[in-house]
């Protein structure tokens, strides 16, 4: 093709208004296989429509063909970054439907592993958010501590990412004395590291310029879109299921619920606030772990002689729990047989990402990446 004819074609094809770009399913910074269809005018975004479903495995259909206990490993794979939380949600739902009461030691163990997993998940969110804004080093620093958490969990149940440790009726295996001493070491070591992360990334001037005032999510818009978790708390709404609707032993534990502030010189509900809420939640997790380690009673870890769960017909339960990303809810409906009639998973990231078109209008392309990173989504639970 010579230059003259290509020049002629350019005259016809070039449109100088908006450009529709595909931030495609394979992209270094969308957290999983998410496709965002961006309409941009130069560098300013006019619209960003997320297109999900690339990881859809229809786990809810699979659940209808499996007995209740067999579905537990599938719940891990939904929000694979905080698998313990998903396990806990499902097991709580089934136990509510079937009316099973689990021993207190199992409750404490469940809370310990869920909070450890919350720390691991927030460290991953911290590291990848650094990557999104261009700082590559915090990723490695965050993962250095995440390795310690994963080693602890591996010591306990043998797996690093998809645990299936929390089972219907209790937990899988008891802790070793080794685990408790290593856990105490970790609890002593971790607050210093949180201060290190804050020095490295949180209060870094360039990072604050990238995230302050970007993607402001007003609280009423957030609630209308069903946003929950750190994204909602970053907008100033102090709602946490562990406080409002306590499950397991959270009513006995003392911890704060961090919300967004204007201390950094920017509005409540911007990306920096959502990110900072996660960093402060790391400190709260450490507090919870300390209390659990002290208060854990001896005893059995699994209900005796549970066998296969067979709840009453048309019994239903909708249990909500606070996962690392927001409120994870399981709606289990039983039809009297050993397989459920319906398991509906209400994933927090599903509602969180639906708010993207609202908060992206008028921001630049680089901000879209920062906003998606601050919402902290995992495609496994959006698509299930």
């Amino acid at each position, binding site marked *: *093709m010579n*230059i003259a004819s*290509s020049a002629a074609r350019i005259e016809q094809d070039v449109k100088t208004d908006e*450009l529709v*770009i595909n931030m495609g399913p394979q*992209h*270094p*910074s969308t957290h999983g296989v998410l496709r965002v269809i961006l309409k941009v005018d130069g*560098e300013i975004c006019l619209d960003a429509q997320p297109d999900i479903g690339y990881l859809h495995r229809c786990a809810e259909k699979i659940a209808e063909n499996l007995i209740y206990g067999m579905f537990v490993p599938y719940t891990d794979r939904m929000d694979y970054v905080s698998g313990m939380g998903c396990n806990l949600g499902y097991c709580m739902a089934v136990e509510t439907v079937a009316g099973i009461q689990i021993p207190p030691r199992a409750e404490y163990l469940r809370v310990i592993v869920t909070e450890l997993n919350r720390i691991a998940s927030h460290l991953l969110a911290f590291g990848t958010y*650094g*990557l*999104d*804004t*261009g*700082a*590559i*080093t915090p990723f*490695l*620093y965050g993962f*250095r501590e995440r390795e310690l958490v994963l080693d602890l969990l591996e010591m306990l149940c043998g797996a690093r990412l998809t645990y299936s440790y929390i089972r219907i009726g209790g937990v899988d295996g008891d802790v070793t004395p080794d685990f408790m001493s290593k856990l105490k070491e970790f609890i002593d070591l971790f607050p210093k590291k949180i201060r290190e992360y804050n020095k490295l*990334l949180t209060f*870094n001037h*360039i*990072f604050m*310029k*990238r995230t302050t005032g970007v993607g402001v999510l007003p609280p009423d818009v957030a609630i209308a879109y069903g946003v929950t978790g750190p994204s909602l708390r970053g907008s100033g709404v102090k709602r946490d299921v562990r406080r409002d609707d306590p499950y397991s032993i959270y009513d006995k534990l003392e911890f704060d619920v961090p919300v967004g502030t204007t201390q950094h010189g920017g509005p409540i509900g911007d990306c920096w606030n959502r990110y900072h809420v996660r960093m402060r939640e790391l400190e709260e997790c450490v507090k919870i772990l300390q209390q659990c380690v002290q208060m854990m009673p001896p005893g059995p870890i699994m209900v005796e002689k549970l066998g296969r769960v067979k709840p009453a017909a048309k019994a239903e339960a909708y249990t909500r729990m606070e996962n690392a990303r927001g409120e994870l809810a399981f709606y289990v409906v039983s039809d009297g047989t050993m397989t459920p009639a319906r398991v509906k998973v209400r994933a927090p990231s599903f509602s969180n990402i639906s708010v993207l078109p609202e908060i992206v209008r008028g921001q*630049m*392309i*680089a*901000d879209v*990446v920062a906003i998606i990173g601050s919402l902290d989504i995992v495609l496994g639970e959006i698509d299930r």
Partner: protein
Amino acid sequence: MNELALNLPVWIDQVNAHTGLRISVPAHLIPILAMFLCASIVAAAMGLSAAVLVWAERKLAGHFQCRLGPVYVGGKFGWLQSIADGIKLFLKEDLIPSDADRPLFRIAPYPVVLGVLLAFIAFPISEKLMVADLNVGIFFILAVLTVEVFGVILAGWASNNKWALIGAMRAVAQMVSYEIPMGLAILPVIMEAQSLSLKSIVNAQSGGILQWYVFQSPVFIGISFLIFFIAALASLKRAPFDLPEAESELTAGFHTEYSGMRFSFFFMAEYAGMILVSGLAALLYLGGWHGIFQGQAGPEWFLLKTSFLVFVMIWIRWTLPRLRIDQVVYLGWKVLTPFVLVCVVGQSFLAYK
């Protein structure tokens, strides 16, 4: 290079005498032969130094991130890693996207490399070691560095890729807006040295550490040194200004569609540019090849200063997040340019003798 052209016939005669070969080069071709020799030496040096710099960056990056970096290829320190990477890039398939503009796609890497390669002509490593002692040395270097902009925009446009185009536009905005602070930041030095020739600028800084221009006039030339350094980082598209090739947003920006040897041209141009700009800063502000105490001089001092500045560049890259493009352009026009103008005016008062 002129000396080489003068010495070449003598050397050829010596080679003939020792080995018995009868090489005879016509007199009017001697300068051309000298040019080729110099060009190949410069290109080879540029390539080799880029390879060493890549290894150094990966090792340093590893240590900044609590890990080790390359440790397998080539023994304990992995120093053959960049050679292995070079061989890999060389052997890769030459892909051109089907709807890309083929001639422009092919041409695009060359202006980028050409800009840096030409700049090495006027670049002295020590009193005697340089290709050509131009009396407009620094002016020539800055002029020639702007050829890179053509290569970048050609690459972005010819790739037929919206992301590459956006990356190219960002790169052009960034490079062009930082040319002004960079050009203005050298004015205080030129005013002090009363010459554009790099050799005379360095010679004016002889006599110990306090004679370096940064310390001769700490306020104005010190600030212009910082501004020059920041503007050079932005001009090279190096973090925290690496938005045009921002991995997490644009999947490698303007050179997304380039692979293999074409990509390695962009790569090499960036690393050679780092050495060039650090060397320039060392020559202009830090005394070039002069040592700390009076009377010490030599290429080793120059290399030491250049490596220190390159280390600072690598350090900054692995510590700081990336600036957004409007913040980059804001910094260039509204922060650096006013400060550097103040430095120029201030230094002109001080230099008034």
